[in-house]
């Protein structure tokens, strides 16, 4: 579908533009402003140029080391949860009942974790995993596993990853389910006639049709896990030590805890830039996938067309020549 060129359409976009600009551009200007200044308190600022950025991106400085630590930690976390949630989400989507009341039942239960406030998700896992009052914690300790997410970094990681899987796998599953639902029955029937195995059906029909929604799922999950704040903040507070201090937690500590405005601002900008570039890569890939799906090469040979025209009279003879009988 080609769109009409109409510059007046800007008027329709203007309110959105104004609101988002007010909420995004103004604050970002403040951040940029802070990021190039230093202060001795008393609202007295002086120019610091790119000093904060140099410090941030220098892994040998204390601040830089801290930033890169949280960055790697966060990337590792994102990688782990993607590696678990995407396959699991696909498996769950494939396991959805085909029809009947149980479909709505499963959908409602699956969507439930997505609408729980993030701090409550933290709370749920706190009371679930604590070794003194939690079902999971006390069960693990009772069967002889020394488990205490407040004391051991490994236990904290396992708990946070499990919590994220609990919280977000449904999103991947629901997206995949929506993709699966859009496949016409004829595809499955054709595959059965062609003698395809379950695995072949998955590879040749289901996975290709899910590609688009999977891209969205990976994008959303990567972004959200890269910005995760509330759940680990409630559960572990970034600890033990700095074991679960992800970028957002670190940034909030820096900005609202220590009021170290210059460093926080520099970190914000770099953080934002990373996200923006990843987002751009995804967006480009996604638009290309769309474009690929939409372009149908209407190449048909002139010879074909001629043959079609030639066969026309022959095929029309029967019904119309009846009356001669």
């Amino acid at each position, binding site marked *: 579908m080609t769109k009409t060129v109409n510059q007046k359409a800007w008027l*329709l976009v203007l309110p*959105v533009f104004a609101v988002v600009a007010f909420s995004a551009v103004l*604050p970002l200007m*403040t951040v940029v402003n802070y990021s190039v200044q230093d202060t001795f308190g008393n609202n007295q600022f002086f120019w610091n140029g790119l000093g904060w950025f140099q410090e941030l991106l220098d892994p040998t400085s204390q601040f830089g080391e801290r930033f890169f630590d949280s960055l790697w930690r966060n990337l590792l976390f994102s990688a782990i949860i993607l590696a678990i949630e995407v396959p699991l989400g696909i498996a769950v989507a494939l396991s959805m009942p085909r029809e009947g009341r149980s479909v709505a039942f499963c959908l409602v239960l699956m969507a439930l974790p997505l609408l729980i406030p993030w701090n409550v998700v933290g709370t749920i896992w706190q009371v679930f995993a604590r070794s003194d009052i939690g079902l999971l914690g006390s069960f693990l300790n009772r069967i002889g596993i020394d488990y205490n997410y407040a004391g051991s970094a490994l236990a904290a990681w396992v708990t946070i990853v499990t919590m994220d899987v609990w919280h977000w796998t449904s999103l991947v599953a629901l997206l995949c389910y*929506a993709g699966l639902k859009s496949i016409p029955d004829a595809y499955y029937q054709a595959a059965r006639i062609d003698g395809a195995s379950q695995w072949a059906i998955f590879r040749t029909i289901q996975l290709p049709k899910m590609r688009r929604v999977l891209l969205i799922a990976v994008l959303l999950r990567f972004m959200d896990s890269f910005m995760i*704040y509330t759940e680990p903040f409630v559960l572990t507070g970034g600890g033990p030590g700095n074991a679960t201090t992800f970028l957002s937690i670190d940034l909030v500590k820096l900005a609202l805890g220590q009021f170290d405005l210059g460093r926080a601002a520099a970190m914000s900008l770099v953080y934002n830039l990373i996200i923006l570039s990843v987002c*751009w890569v995804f967006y480009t890939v996604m638009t290309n996938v769309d474009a690929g799906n939409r372009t149908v090469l209407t190449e048909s040979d002139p010879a074909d067309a001629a043959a079609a025209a030639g066969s026309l009279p022959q095929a029309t003879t029967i019904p119309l020549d009846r009356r001669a009988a």
Partner: protein
Amino acid sequence: MRPRHVVMTLYLLFLMVPIYWLVNMSLKTNQEINSGMTLWPHAITFDNYIRIFTDPSWYGGYLNSLSYVAINTVLSIGLALPAAYAFSRYSFIGDKHLFFWLLSNRMAPPAVFALPFFNLYSAVGLFDTPWAVALAHCLFNVPLAVWILEGFMSGVPREIDETAAIDGYSFPRFFVKIFMPLIASGIGVAAFFCFMFSWVELLLARTLTSVDAKPIAATMTRTVSAAGMDWGLLAAAGVLTIVPGALVIWFVRNYIAKGFALGRV
């Protein structure tokens, strides 16, 4: 049982057990919670719930949360509708870049905006009102709503617009009377996602409020008292935050599959 039934059952169990534990805990007395493990409440008590419903600082939190969620949803959809229409129907200078820029805001980390928002809304005198939180959430919800609605609108054939114009409908009347009913499910889906994000977000909601507009999520982080954690009360408050979400899902259950495709599959 078939393997897929096993997968589904295990997955749903995995989802439900922690929630069960929260409900279980909310019905126990603190004495029972602290005195050892019980798989179900031996002495069921509703005291935790009664306290929440009678203490204004508790139930006020719910009202505050619901009010900024409502403001935000209405605001986001209202702003996004004309913009989504423009993106789905017209091409204009900078449309692609603008669309990407809008979407990129949905992806921006709230933590980056916490401090500048605090400064901004303090400066304009909105700090500690539901409007501050609602406007702040618009940064994330408006782009999302535009994106979802654009998907649904692109599915409506352009001929409808032209027919309506020929029939003498003015643009606003056409939009409200004809176009909006056609994408009603899209509006529902967009509203659902706005509700979802605004309801679950804590960082900005907590940063932009202090006393009057404090959301329930922030109230909950302060259940530590001199006598230690009040686990029962915390659990009860948690259960009550799940209820609105569960209600919303129940109403949209038949649209979930289509909704999560965001009108784009």
